[in-house]
């Protein structure tokens, strides 16, 4: 058996990588700031007494643009990765993805309604549009997940196989609805919709950030408490019950956390694939499947991967910006394939 990395080593490495990613994410962009200025300005923003000479520009870029964007990236990456762990645990399958319960499809449907519906009504007020979009996406994601969960229930038990199939059907339905809205939309609206579907951390602001941060913190605090129960669930549902786990409650919590987390992430940054699938898988390959390690490590690794993907999105075609969903798929898919091939040999 391949040697596992000690959890402590993994956490130290991930924390260092995370700090590096934050630093680079704050420093690099259309206006690149010297790394040392970034560090000083960053420390000043944290309230440390550092002389302000020559830092005004750096401080403004950091505070207004890059810090909210970096926080958004960390939170989205962390919450997507945690949701991935939750879904892979729920379906007892390492290839499960947070999208399986229909949350992404529901959010996309909600967003399509907001974008296209808004344009039919003669355009939303400029200030209100982004909030409406986020709200519709969030409600869409939550609503569809609730429906999928409901469809999977019979006689007080949740059948995850039925849920999976209901999720597949709802995802197809969501895709059809988004397709219909795209067909009916005019060119400008279609472009907005398409770009939203590819995801972006662009335009992050503090007032749109805090709902996501709150939800991410809630999910990040809640799921690790259930790590042992998740381990037992991997043995099988009845095995977990025989070990004293309230399996129905656990399943409800996992679905709820995923719906909230992915719903909020998609509402804030659009559809970003592959993080929820690749990150937990990678962590398991490195450190084994114990959820007491996988959950916190995925949280960190999700944030790190998201920030590096966002850096690539910002820098590859600068000053233009690639949608981040394209970058995560381009990094994530080949990486995943390499892991699969190496894991087999």
């Amino acid at each position, binding site marked *: 058996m391949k040697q596992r990395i000690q959890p402590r080593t993994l956490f130290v490495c991930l924390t260092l990588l995370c700090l590096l990613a934050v630093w680079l994410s704050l420093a690099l962009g259309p206006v690149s700031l010297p790394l040392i200025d970034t560090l000083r300005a960053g420390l000043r923003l944290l309230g440390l007494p550092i002389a302000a000479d020559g830092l005004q520009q750096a401080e403004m870029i950091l505070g207004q643009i890059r810090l909210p964007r970096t926080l958004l990236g960390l939170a989205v990456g962390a919450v997507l990765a945690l949701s991935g762990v939750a879904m892979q645990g729920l379906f007892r399958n390492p290839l499960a993805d947070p999208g399986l319960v229909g949350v992404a499809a529901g959010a996309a449907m909600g967003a399509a309604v907001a974008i296209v519906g808004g344009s039919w009504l003669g355009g939303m007020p400029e200030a209100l549009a982004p909030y409406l979009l986020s709200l519709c996406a969030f409600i869409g994601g939550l609503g569809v997940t609730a429906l999928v969960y409901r469809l999977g229930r019979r006689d007080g038990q949740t059948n995850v196989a039925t849920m999976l199939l209901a999720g597949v059907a709802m995802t197809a339905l969501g895709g059809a609805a988004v397709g219909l809205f795209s067909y009916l939309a005019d060119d400008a609206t279609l472009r907005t919709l398409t770009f939203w579907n590819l995801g972006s951390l662009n335009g992050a602001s503090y007032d749109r950030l805090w709902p996501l941060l709150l939800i991410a913190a809630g999910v990040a605090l809640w799921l690790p408490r259930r790590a042992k129960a998740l*381990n*037992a669930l991997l043995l099988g549902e*009845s*095995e977990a019950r*025989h070990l004293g*786990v309230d399996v129905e409650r656990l399943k409800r919590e996992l679905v709820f956390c995923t719906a909230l987390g992915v719903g909020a992430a998609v509402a804030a940054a659009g559809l970003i694939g592959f993080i929820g699938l690749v990150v937990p898988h990678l962590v*398991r390959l490195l450190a*084994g*499947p114990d959820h007491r390690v996988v959950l916190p490590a995925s949280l960190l690794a999700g944030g790190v991967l998201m920030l590096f993907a966002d850096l690539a999105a910002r820098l590859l075609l600068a000053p233009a910006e690639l949608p981040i969903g394209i970058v995560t798929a381009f990094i994530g898919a080949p990486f995943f394939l390499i892991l699969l091939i190496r894991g087999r040999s």
Partner: protein
Amino acid sequence: MLQVEGLHLRRGSNDVLQGIDLHLSPGQVVGVLGPNGAGKSSLLGVLCGELAPDRGAVTLQGRPLADWAGQERARRLAVLPQVSSLGFSFKVEEVVAMGRMPHDTGQRRDAEIVEEALQAADAAHLVGRSYLALSGGERQRVHLARVLAQLWPGEEGSTLLLDEPTSMLDPLHQHTTLEAVRRFADCGAAVLVILHDLNLAARYCDRILLLESGRCHALATPAQVLTPASLKAVFGIEVLVQAHPERGHPLIITR
């Protein structure tokens, strides 16, 4: 100690179990025998609370099974299913350690128990290996170690239910497994084990429940139950029954 009286179970339009009375007492191994579809696994499902009976109630230490809190129950009742579908590469000792989940005896004590349980199931040499790299029989022994660890050391008041624990094992490990189960019962645990091998049942069980299409055909000692007449009636096989030359328990030979 687990008890059920007047048990009836319907699934769809079939009566799967009818009028079963069973009492698992401390220190005893009860074997359940019967042809395919006789209701053995359904009986185990009812006894561990997975299936709700239509009539008759299961009680664990005098209290209805459904009234126990999950964790409290898990400290007293462990179940080994026929097959397990673990698809993640836990190490062997991590799988066994999951059996300690309902307890809070501390990491050090848990590690000792895991080691002892692995030894009891003759799986100690598998430590450090990935569960996914094991053969079917090795996996079965690891899960046996897990349920033994859950009730370790098997004192009075603990109940162990096993669904065909020897189905994938070689002849040596069929015996080491049932010897481990026997020792567990000798410490005071009440054990129910579903078996297919009549001779294994004759050797290791104190009492045998012979099921025939959901009804109790006989429930008594191996010598009383394993007679040519009952085996002909239930399984439709012609057998000779002799006393084991060294041990004295019935030895079943097909004619």
